[in-house]
């Protein structure tokens, strides 16, 4: 067996390092593509060897790192991480293909950062030690920061710093929570350990419920801010909007907040001082994010900003599903992460293509693009439809699962969130109508359709969206297995 | 025997005078002189304590600190000399390139 988990980190990292030293754009893009394809190959290997019938950790590796602190380099893949790794590995090669023809400064850094990002995100997914986890968690900040800061739009500096400081502070507070967990467990067991699973398991034995709450809240704060959900979201619209297309897609692929929620917070949740209250709080946040995101998206004039807010709305589903705390609602939340990654990639790619061809993102300045850009329009349609939850596309499966099964525990919030479906459909259709159809706006000028590479890359992703809409089981199965394991913890305590 | 507190009082007084002088003077040489005063008041303390506790450490310490004070003054004067050559005075107020 290959040490897949480590290789998944190492391969993109090595390719990234080499890419930084390339001279021409061709070399950079080529190497970047090669690296991402290699990663994809590894991921597929892992996927094919993956046993989705068990919630146990697979491809597990562990090396002692700092024994005196109980730090190990331990990595592994299970049903929570596998789909997300898959998502990353699939989208990134197409992202590179998509941007193949774009002209930009310092392409070597651009592609190098993309690969670094991939390595960091996968690193977060496979890490089984808090320290390793945190290291990769922080590492994701750096490429994104520079992505926005260098190749972003007009307000890029502001946006990049805002994003950076926000999420960095949040993750530092999470770190403090991790410290608390670490020391409390040290006191409990007498041996230091940073192992995620062990610490999460130890959590229930801490005597002071105040301590447990403090730890839980500070850790989940980091995840929620990264996700993001409603009160912690204000970095999102700026960063998503100002980022270059590839940057936006990378933001979309940054599923580490939700992953942390499933991996760390949910198993801990039943053992907090008042799980009911926390579940309700989460449900409230999720439902509110869904509605709030949709409402705000409704009144956006900027296409990209609109998509950004719709992304916020979608993230609400993740939280709501988690709060549902039933195997299927949690699986829905996980599937929402997965499908959201695919859908939003298409949407941001489309928005990026529109901006590069027409030079504007303001919806009112567009119009009738379908006539000049039919291929884009078709692909974008798929994305929009999936985003608004049209049955038969992957977005529907996720939303359906979340709504249906969260209703068991949180009926009020679900009913409230259902409002959003109408709104979402409204702004999506409205934007589609104004931008792509209708009267051709002469101000846009003479424009041509997207190039074939872009068609290819977006097309593949669109096909996946459709495929998973019809047949979610390849990923959903493993999600359900793991969700059951998580939820069974709660059942033991009676939640 | 003179009570210990007399020595301590004197030392404290000298120390305060020195500290006050360092705070208020702008001339480098005067500042060095004030610093020497502070160091010597500490020496006075050390010697006084030494004789009252019947241990020798204090006197040895004073000896070393005298030597160090001399070396310190030497280094200080060297710096002031160099400054004087450049600015033609050693008024500390006029040295303000490095601010913020």
């Amino acid at each position, binding site marked *: 067996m290959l040490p897949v988990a480590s290789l998944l980190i190492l391969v993109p990292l090595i390719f990234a390092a080499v890419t930084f030293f390339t001279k021409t754009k061709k070399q950079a893009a080529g190497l970047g593509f090669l690296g991402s394809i290699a990663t994809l190959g590894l991921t597929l290997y892992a996927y094919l060897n993956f046993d989705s019938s068990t919630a146990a950790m697979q491809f597990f590796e562990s090396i002692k790192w*700092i024994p*005196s602190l109980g730090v190990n380099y331990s990595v592994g893949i299970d049903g929570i991480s596998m789909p997300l790794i898959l998502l990353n590995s699939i989208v990134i090669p197409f992202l590179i293909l998509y941007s193949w023809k774009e002209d930009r400064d310092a392409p070597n850094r651009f592609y190098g950062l993309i690969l670094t990002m991939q390595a960091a995100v996968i690193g977060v997914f496979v890490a089984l030690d808090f*320290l390793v986890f*945190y*290291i990769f968690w*922080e*590492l994701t900040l750096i490429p994104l920061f*520079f992505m926005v*800061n260098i190749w972003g739009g007009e307000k890029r500096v502001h946006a990049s*710093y805002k994003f*950076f*400081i926000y999420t*960095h*502070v949040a993750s*530092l507070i999470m*770190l*403090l929570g991790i*410290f608390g967990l*670490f*020391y409390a467990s040290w006191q409990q067991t007498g041996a230091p350990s940073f192992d995620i699973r062990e610490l999460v398991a130890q959590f229930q034995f801490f005597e002071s419920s105040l301590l447990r709450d403090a730890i839980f809240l500070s850790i989940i704060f980091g995840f929620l801010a990264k996700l993001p959900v409603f009160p912690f979201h204000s970095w999102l619209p700026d960063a998503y909007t100002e980022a270059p297309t590839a940057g936006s897609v990378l933001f979309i692929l940054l599923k580490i907040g939700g992953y942390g929620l499933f991996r760390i917070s949910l198993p801990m949740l039943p053992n907090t001082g008042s799980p009911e209250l926390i579940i309700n709080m989460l449900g409230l946040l999720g439902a509110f994010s869904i509605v709030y995101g949709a409402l705000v998206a409704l009144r956006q004039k900027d296409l990209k900003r609109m998509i950004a807010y719709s992304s916020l709305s979608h993230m609400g589903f993740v939280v709501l599903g988690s709060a549902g705390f039933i195997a299927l609602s949690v699986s829905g939340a996980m599937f929402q992460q997965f499908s959201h990654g695919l859908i939003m990639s298409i949407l941001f790619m489309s928005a990026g293509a529109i901006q590069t061809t027409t030079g504007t993102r303001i919806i009112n300045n567009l119009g009738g693009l379908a006539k000049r850009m039919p291929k884009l329009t078709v692909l974008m349609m798929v994305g929009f439809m999936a985003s608004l939850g049209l049955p038969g596309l992957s977005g529907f499966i996720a939303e359906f699962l979340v709504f249906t099964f969260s209703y068991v525990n949180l009926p009020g919030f679900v009913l409230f969130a259902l409002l959003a479906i109408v709104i979402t459909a409204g702004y999506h259709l409205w934007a589609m109508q104004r931008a792509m159809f209708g009267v051709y706006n002469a101000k846009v000028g003479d424009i041509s359709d997207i190039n074939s590479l872009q068609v290819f890359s977006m097309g593949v992703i669109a096909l996946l969206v459709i495929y998973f809409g019809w047949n979610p089981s390849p990923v959903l199965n493993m999600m359900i297995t793991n969700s059951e394991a998580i939820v069974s913890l709660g059942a033991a305590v009676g939640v | 025997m003179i009570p210990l507190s007399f020595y301590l009082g004197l*030392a404290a007084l000298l*120390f305060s005078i*020195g*500290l006050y002088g*360092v705070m208020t003077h702008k001339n*480098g040489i005067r500042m060095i002189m004030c*610093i020497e005063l*502070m*160091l010597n*008041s*500490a*020496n006075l*303390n*050390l010697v*006084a*304590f030494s004789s*009252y*506790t*019947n241990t020798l*450490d*204090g006197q*040895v*310490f004073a000896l*070393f*600190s005298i030597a*160090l004070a001399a*070396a*310190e003054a030497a*280094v*200080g004067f060297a*710096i002031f000399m*160099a*400054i004087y*050559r*450049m600015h033609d005075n050693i008024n*500390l107020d006029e*040295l303000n*390139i*490095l601010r*913020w």
Partner: protein
Amino acid sequence: MLLAPEIAVVATALIILLIGAFMSPRTKNVLGYLATLGVFAALVLTVQSLGTEAVMFYNTVSIDALSQFFKLVFLAVALIVSVASIKYNENSDHTEEFYCLVLFATFGMMGVASANDLILLFCAFELASLATFALAGFEKQDARSLEGAMKYFIIGAISSALMLFGISFVYGATGTTRIPAIAENAAFLAQNPIGLVAIVLLIAGFGFKMALVPFHMWAPDAYQGSPSVVSSLLAAGSKKMGFVAAFRVFILALPALQVDWQLAFTILAAVTMTFGNVVAVSQTSVKRMLAYSSLAQAGYIAMAFVVMTPMALTGGIFYTLAHAFMKGGAFIATAAVVWMVTSQKTGDLITPDHLDNFKGLGKKMPLAALSMTVFVFALAGIPPTAGFMAKLLLFSSTIEAGMAWLAVIAVLNSALSLFYYARLVRYMYFLPPDGKKIGMPFQYAAALLIAVAGVLVMGIWSEPFLQWAMDAAQVLA
């Protein structure tokens, strides 16, 4: 021979002084290599003697894990500085003086590290101070260097007077200058107001060296004014001396007054880190920025005095070594840039360390830019660097001790610090260069590589360093 490292350092210094006086300026470059060799030998000797313990010279010198660890710190700094200085001193007529002072300063610091007696502590402290005063003003033709040196001197001299006065009270109340004996006899000090006075004076004295707010006034000026290699020594070495002295005096000699000095350090640490970071944000001179960031780092390390658990002490001690590499390296990188600016005569010549001169450094001097990036990320505490491990230990132990509020302040501060560090990285990599690529002098390159290696090795393979730091903390426990 447990004092072999010290002897190696002093002997090298004396030999350099002597043969340097007989050499012509052109051949004096050899002296730099000689100094490096001497420091390296001392480093090897120290590593060899790790784990040994002894008390020598009528209980005045204590060789223990703490002293060995800090000797390592100082020697590592001296190594980096002396390698980098070879280029700085090229064609200088004062090479031997420079190295002699560097080595004597190192010797003084090593003396402080192993002092078991306040007399030795004070003398060694002053030896290091005096040497660094002279080094700070080494550029006799540069008004900034002189101004920095002068401020450093005045405040340093005041601080040593304060310290001496404080020590005199400690001596008077306990009747001894031996640190263990003071700890035994400190009961009187604890009940008497004189103890409080002594604590205040001592904190002021050491605080100057550690550059804690409000005793920090000299630090930005001296760091900015001095030649960059010297700033490196000041920030990375001399500051640590303040810490090891404070470790010895407060924790080992005056545990009876722990309540008092702990309170003082609590306030100082919180204020220092906040002040340093806030002010650093608005700096345009990189050296000054690094100086303020150094202030902030001192604030973090001072948390060790506040928390005082074994883990916190380990963290503080570990931090000193990490900081030595990070800050030392960062100043060396600045030295390389200053060298580039002055030798190419491009950019802002008046403040050669101006942020604008770092524009496009990634293209002009890739190695300098890359290592600077590593250093600033390490300073910001980004994994997997030494800075991260250090912060991890220190902040986590603060949580452990139940002082979450201090940890939150520290964590917010380190988030804030990222702001100006990232700006520097942006200047280096993402702004267009205003010149061609320039060959890096290999001396700077070597020094930078040593520092980068230190930062990364400590971050990735931290176990042995952690063990050393734990052993050292054991001495204080």
